[in-house]
């Protein structure tokens, strides 16, 4: 089984403060691996430990993200790939998904594991965008993975859970770590990782079309950040046996 794990470097949310004009103050704030991406990594490493899955960690980010990718190697991933280029800067979720998708298409894989969202953007848009770009299934909000053929995943929707056979290839977004996660690398893994290196690729090597990446390829731009209170709605289940009528109901919901 080949698993790709998407990780992201974010500023430590416990140390970031918000200035009076609403901007995040990141100066001198140490970076860390996004906790949701970390959960995805832990699930992948658990599968590596239990069934010998081959795990490749990928991120798109600035050159400094190499430290985090090195950390992935220390945790025991087989390969770590950093996609980094000035042309990737300012990417929104769609441009990021296109860049990652462009590279992932060049790889053989069974599953793409990622966090359901990242703590710096909180959009939760990337996993579904990526699944659309790759043209494969998505299993969202996964909390547990049971080893079977195919893997059986538990999805969490508010207070309800759903157990589902996850046919591959598929994107899987996680919202919880495994029950007995690898919490930190061992000293031995740390030393072994020093013999490995992070593969660094630029835009040309990835082959992303120029207009579809970075700020040029973005459809959204951040104007202002506000805190909003979201009204709580109960989860509504739609009968999916007839996909056409289910889609009609969904479109109706979106249009309001």
């Amino acid at each position: 089984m080949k698993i790709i794990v998407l990780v992201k470097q974010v500023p430590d949310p416990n140390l970031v403060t918000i200035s009076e004009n609403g901007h995040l103050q990141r100066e001198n704030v140490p970076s860390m691996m996004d906790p949701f991406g970390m959960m995805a990594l832990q699930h992948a490493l658990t599968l590596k430990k239990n069934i010998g899955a081959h795990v490749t960690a990928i991120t798109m980010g600035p050159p400094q993200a190499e430290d985090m990718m090195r950390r992935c190697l220390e945790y025991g991933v087989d390969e770590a790939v950093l996609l980094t280029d000035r042309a990737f800067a300012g990417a929104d979720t769609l441009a990021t998904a296109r860049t990652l998708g462009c590279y992932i298409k060049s790889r053989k894989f069974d599953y793409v594991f990622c966090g359901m969202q990242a703590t710096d953007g909180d959009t939760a848009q990337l996993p579904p965008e990526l699944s659309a770009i790759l043209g494969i299934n998505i299993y969202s909000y996964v909390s547990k993975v049971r080893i079977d053929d195919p893997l059986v995943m538990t999805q969490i929707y508010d207070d309800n859970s759903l157990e589902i056979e996850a046919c591959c290839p598929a994107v899987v977004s996680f919202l919880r770590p495994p029950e007995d996660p690898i919490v930190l690398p061992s000293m031995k893994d740390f030393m072994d990782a020093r013999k490995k290196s992070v593969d660094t690729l630029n835009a040309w090597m990835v082959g992303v079309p120029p207009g579809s990446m970075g700020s040029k390829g973005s459809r959204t731009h951040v104007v202002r950040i506000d805190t909003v209170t979201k009204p709580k709605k109960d989860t509504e289940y739609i009968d999916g046996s007839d996909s056409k009528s289910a889609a009609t109901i969904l479109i109706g919901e979106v249009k309001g």
Partner: protein
Amino acid sequence: MIDFVPDPNSPYLIDECKIRGNAERVVIPDDESELSSVVKEANRTGTNITISGLRTGLCGGSVPLGGILVSMERFSSMIGIGKDGEGYFLRVQPCVTIDEIVRSVQLKRIEGFSDITPNACSEFRSDKRKFFYPVDPTEMRGSIGGNISANASGARTFKYGPTRNWVKSLRVMLADGNIIRIERGEHISNGRHFDVTIDDVHLEFDIPNYDFNRSVKNATGLYCHEDMDLIDLIIGSEGILGIIVEADLRLTEWHPLISNIIFMPDDQSAISLIDDLRHDTIVEPEFIEYFDKGSVDLIRRTCLTDPTILRPPGYECSAVFMDMSMDNDVESRFERLFELVRKNGGDPGRSWTGYDQNDRKRMFAFRHSVPKSIFDYVASLKDGIPAINKMGTDMSVPEEHNLEMMSFYDSILKEHGLEYVIFGHMGNCHPHVEIILKDMEDLTKAKEAYGILAQRAFEFGGSPSAEHGIGKLKRDYIRMVYGTEGISEIRNVKSAFDPNNILNRGNIVE
């Protein structure tokens, strides 16, 4: 200024030792002039003043025995940055927390700070190097004033020494309301006699004839030795000589560290690994902490209900927690560490390692979860929140007696039929033995055992109170260590500073 009569259940009457005191008034001054007026009035009327910081002490130092409780909580400003020949220093008020100090220095968040020396703030901000305040007293929410008054230490004392080593100067309000600035190196005793005039205040007195035990971690009574610095007499004096209103703290250059928690097969192999590591010149540990098997088991229980704590591995083990420098020599440090781990029956694959701040924070949270795990355990036995749950020792011994002392802990506590776990600063031969109190009978037995253990630690040339101080709880140990004569000499020093005995009455001596 706030001034009120406290309710008997007021949080101002209690600290972390959970002994409740009483006070006629609680006063919260806004500034030095208000504090001075309270002190002057108390001095005139002979009223006892107990100084309180953030009440995280473990020996009742801020628990009032009548009179006025003065809370310093509004003295909570970071004042500025200075620089002299020895490097940068931070000027703070006493109720700034250790956590605030650590964050401000680490992130260089010094907006609004004053230049204590010309252009120090801009120089500090633009300095490419990182700095830190190296004392880690475990309780990061404690006040720096309390830390200085108790000469707090912690895991990093192994390399950096206690709080005392990092205090450059103090401004201290005396019992008559006057303030003096004591700069390190400026006021040295002549033998055991002080005759100094500072800011028009004249102080003349003899220090006690005992030599404070500096060969082990020690927080038992007033620090004194021949030709000593006056500032060292104030540090660790638990507020009986004066009230700290401002402190200058030395900072040191930060360097990257890698933390390791090594799971060893049993207690003996873990202790033996620590013995090998203590003076190893290749690994050069920055601190070494120990968890016996019982401590790891308790943490494992607590993890089931608290997912924020790292879950120990499923196999039976003890653990050693140590930091080392992550420099160009890190590979040879690890090679040597692996060699020592294997020599003592361990496996380098059975360990955790981390160097980024977040991972290291989680490892420290694991270290700090032992007391909570004991609380959870006792709560589960009693099916509720226990009023008492443990009694922790705070004894250090010279290295040559460490193993004997460890065996002595075992034999005495077993003899008394007590359940216990051992963890803590084994690098400094200063483990915390946490006696689990399941009922009041255990409390009686634990008190008796504690006295026997403290006596043996003292006989071994150690300290019965290595880092928590004396406060009101451990005064018996002052008598054990210094005798009646020593107590009388401590009282004489107090009289020179506080002739009407108004400040923190009951701390260190009655």
